[in-house]
């Protein structure tokens, strides 16, 4: 180790020892971790936290309550972890104020861990199963999600005490070339969607002429239905800062930006705090850890435009302009921000960097598939039971992801499709479930892995409607530069709207197909090039649904509003119940002379309320398609 390397190592060790001492003090006493990422908050985590604090005070206990991020089990939010010396660390799910009060009085004040509310223990013990005793835990392999939900994202010492920033200290000693060689050798591919080899991007940028150079983290997460990057920013911001700093060191940049989506205010707040704390510790700013390398990071808040996730549009946006993509080449690695060499990487991509530097390229390559090493982080949403974040090795099948990790389809419904890859991806049917997922495998099926958004669809979801939804999205988000993208998507959207409203024509399917091909060829950036994918995959795999809409005016999934009507099945209805009447916002449900209920189709606004209300009672409300024009039944 060089002299300067020694200095860095010493500076780092000092930070780490301080942090570990502080954390050791915390471990000695009981403490409560409350998951207060956006998902936790939406489920009521802040109220739960308040209850903990109040009850702890009432019982006069010496127990700390800390806010953490998201463990990925969003379906079980609000989640809480309790550490009490002498007991295994236990995780509790779906905690409400009542359960919180019980946990304080029974467990923290006494010694009953309330196993009836517990989900899992964090480490093996004789009392309670751990996460790895469930299928989700067996199939998951966590790298970037490891510490999420377990460390305080607002306190850098939590990260430091768990060997955080070791990789930065190590990288500063290795030198830029060795860092790039290690990343290149690891075959890390960009997690922003395209899967471009990260090491090659860095090398190109390092060798490019021109200074200063810039690094940018793409945290725009535009896929509507994905939330991996948000969770990482809110749960472990330092992991990203460390990766970004190492990237800057490798290519020789002194300035970095993190481009965060405006819709993520909590992520921005936590990131700001993290950057400040890193500066205070000398991990950012002038002469990082006492080395010759200086680097600082600024946050740039996006303003809600999907196309700004595209790297050239993103640069235009930081430069103060409308986010309109430019022709590539030159690639940003050669000529980017202010015309200077710039690398842009996704949040997840950068979050892997410290792990690769710490454990080596060979370790990384031992996970996943030869061409796509490492893990993939998925955001499971839609009709799957276990919604949330999951990290699995590349090459895991969609079936494992949906049924083992995600615990299958909600309410015992039938699986229909997975929407993967967002607006650029597609809807894949049941047979595709056995595809191993990596960057290359899904392309053949017409979809793409994308950044990790995965929406599970069941028998109640209409495939024409989802295609229309995505076209509406891309049409709205098209920056308008390319004629085909601007007008072609509009035309496709009009046709799809007609089909979902019962005005489809037999030739529409072929017309959609032709338009799709034109848009693919005639668009400059991937927004336009991939916009037709949701339409093409749904036509390819669910053509009969298009035909039912067009030929019979029928929506097989009973979803398209213009093609359905609501009815009450007299045989199932109860004379004694009028829950449906109370649930109707427009007084469309009435009591018939025989005391059974019925729906006035003229007044009905198809809000679904009565159906949902009756679901838990008699399941007497049903939808019909094609729609019943007159009140035909008794």
């Amino acid at each position: 180790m060089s002299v300067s390397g020694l200095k860095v190592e010493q500076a780092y060790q000092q930070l780490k020892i301080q942090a570990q001492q502080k954390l050791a003090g915390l471990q000695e006493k009981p403490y409560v971790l409350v998951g207060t990422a956006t998902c936790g908050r939406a489920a009521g985590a802040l109220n739960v936290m308040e209850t903990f604090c109040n009850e702890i005070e009432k019982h006069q206990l010496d127990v700390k309550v800390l806010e953490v991020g998201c463990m990925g089990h969003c379906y079980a939010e609000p989640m809480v972890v309790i550490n009490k010396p002498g007991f295994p660390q236990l995780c509790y799910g779906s905690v409400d104020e009542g359960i919180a009060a019980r946990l304080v009085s029974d467990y923290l004040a006494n010694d009953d861990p309330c196993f009836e509310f517990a989900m899992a223990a964090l480490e093996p013990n004789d009392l309670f199963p751990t996460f790895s005793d469930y299928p989700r835990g067996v199939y998951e392999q966590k790298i970037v999600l490891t510490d999420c939900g377990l460390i305080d994202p607002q306190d850098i010492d939590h990260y430091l005490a768990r060997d955080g920033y070791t990789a930065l200290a190590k990288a500063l000693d290795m030198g830029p070339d060795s860092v790039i060689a290690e990343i290149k050798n690891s075959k890390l591919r960009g997690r922003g969607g395209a899967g471009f080899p990260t090491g090659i991007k860095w090398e190109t940028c390092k060798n490019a002429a021109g200074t200063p150079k810039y690094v940018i983290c793409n945290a725009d997460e535009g896929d509507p239905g994905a939330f991996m990057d948000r969770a990482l920013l809110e749960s472990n911001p330092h992991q990203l800062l460390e990766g970004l700093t190492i990237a800057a060191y490798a290519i020789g940049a002194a300035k970095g930006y993190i481009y965060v989506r405006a819709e993520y205010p909590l992520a921005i707040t936590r990131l700001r705090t993290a950057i400040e704390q890193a500066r205070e510790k000398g991990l950012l700013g002038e002469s990082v850890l006492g080395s010759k390398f200086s680097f600082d990071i600024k946050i740039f808040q996006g303003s809600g435009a999907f196309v700004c996730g595209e790297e050239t549009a993103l640069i235009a946006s930081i430069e103060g302009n409308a986010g309109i993509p430019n022709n590539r080449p030159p690639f940003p690695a050669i000529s980017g921000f202010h015309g200077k060499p710039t690398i842009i990487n996704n949040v997840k991509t950068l979050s892997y960097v410290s792990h690769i530097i710490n454990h080596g390229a060979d370790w990384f390559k031992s996970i996943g598939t030869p061409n796509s090493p490492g893990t993939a982080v998925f955001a499971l949403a839609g009709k799957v039971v276990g919604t949330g974040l999951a990290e699995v090795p590349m090459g895991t099948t969609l079936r494992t992801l949906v049924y083992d990790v995600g615990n299958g389809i909600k309410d015992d419904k039938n699986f229909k499709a997975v929407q993967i890859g967002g607006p650029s991806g597609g809807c894949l049917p049941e047979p595709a479930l056995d595809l191993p997922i990596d960057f290359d495998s899904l392309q053949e099926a017409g979809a793409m892995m994308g950044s990790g958004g995965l929406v599970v669809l069941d028998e109640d979801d209409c495939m024409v409607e989802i295609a229309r939804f995505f076209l509406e999205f891309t049409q709205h988000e098209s920056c308008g530069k390319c004629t085909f993208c601007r007008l072609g998507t509009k035309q496709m959207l009009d046709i799809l709207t007609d089909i979902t409203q019962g005005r489809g024509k037999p030739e529409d399917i072929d017309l959609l197909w032709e338009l799709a091909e034109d848009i693919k060829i005639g668009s400059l950036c991937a927004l336009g090039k991939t916009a037709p994918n949701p339409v093409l995959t749904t036509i390819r795999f669910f053509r009969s649904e298009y035909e039912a809409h067009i030929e019979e005016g029928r929506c097989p999934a009973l979803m398209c509003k213009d093609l359905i009507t609501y009815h009450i099945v007299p045989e199932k209805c109860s004379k004694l119940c009028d829950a449906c009447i109370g649930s109707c916002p427009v007084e469309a449900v009435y009591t018939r002379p025989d005391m059974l209920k019925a729906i006035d189709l003229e007044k009905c606004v198809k809000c679904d309320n009565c159906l949902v209300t009756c679901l838990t009672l008699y399941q007497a409300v049903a939808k019909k398609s094609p729609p019943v024009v007159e009140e035909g039944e008794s």
Partner: protein
Amino acid sequence: MEPMEEPKEEPMEDELEIIHAEVDSVLKRYESNPEKLIPILQGVQAKLGYLPKEAMLQIADAVQIPEVEVYGVGTFYNQFRLNPPGKHQIKVCMGTACHMTGGRIIMDSFERRLEIPEGETTPDREFSLERVACVGCCALAPVVLVDEEVEAKVRPTRVDGILLGFGMELPSANNKQKEEGREE
């Protein structure tokens, strides 16, 4: 305190003063740097709730770029609004997960209750209704942002609950029928 005023079209003199002062302070913070146009617009919107025409003129003048360019940037990004928002801002998520789990039905319910289409503000300026493309809370879809607080797993009945929580009176069966003259 003045009595209730008529809604006004043009900003009043004192309002203009406020706009100028707020825009000035934001411009100072960013040293009228044209490259900081987006943060400047964000800063102004954070203060005023929207981007008044007068503010955009003042910004164009200060950072020395054509007015159309400021306007262009202001209209390109979904986040910017050119009209004042309601006192309570309701944003219905229309991302993939929310859409497929009933986001449209939620939007319909708000439109029906507030009697305004998506993208508008109620005449009394109490509520504005907008759509948002995913707030990253897809696991708990469908989601609504009510004054920046995330409401999860929203049903149409919850829509009424949210509005009642703000003291809005919902039409009861009788009133509604009377209004529409449909009472027998």
